């Protein structure tokens, strides 16, 4: 999963290199969204002994 996240980020940086601004923005959104999902998985809310 993490390799896939870095691959999406690489694609985003390549879009910047080849001056594709819109594509770069879409890939930024995809990477941040995917990164956030992985973060929520790894935070593991179930293991936290807190009452919200």
């Amino acid at each position, binding site marked *: 999963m*993490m390799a896939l996240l*870095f691959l999406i980020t690489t694609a985003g940086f390549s879009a*910047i*290199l080849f001056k594709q601004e819109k594509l770069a923005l879409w890939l930024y959104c995809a990477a941040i969204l995917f990164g956030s999902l*992985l973060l929520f998985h790894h935070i593991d809310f179930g293991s936290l002994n807190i009452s919200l």
Partner: protein
Amino acid sequence: MEVQTEKELFDSVNMLDIIGIAIVLLVAFCFQFHYSEMPCPLCLLQRFGFFMMAYGLMMNVVFTLRARNYALSAIAALFTAVTSLRQMFLHIVPGTGGYGGTLFGWHLYTWCFVFSGLFLMATFFALLFDKQFVKMTTPRTDTHESIGRLLVALFIILLLVNVVGSYMECGLAYCPDNPMHYIHNI
């Protein structure tokens, strides 16, 4: 300050920021490959956050200076701060130790939290100077553009090393919380 001067100043500041982020990432690589420390999933997510912090700045350098690009970097800095704070909380109870080695007495995730906080403040400070966003009819100098493209190429190389490294560590599944060895060897 003149519009042109402010634009050139912030172009240079953005490039220096990007070089600073590249140094931070190279330190992380040094810990991984020289000291043979396996990066945990939260560590990899903090690295990802640093790459995304450079993303907005890179768009500023390669395309044009825009408030939107600073916002992209600020969102990434918040992401990095949350990730490193979570890792600090994992080891907040006295006696639970920490993950990985230390640099000047602090663990890398603590440094990461400090850097992302400072970066966030610097980004908001940069937004105070709005003459940098004025559209100019004269094109940018070739030197700026070439340096910008060179920096993007450097980041692509760093990212590809990360793609290979994280594939060797976790494959295509979720990374283990406490990785002990690489599951794929090249």
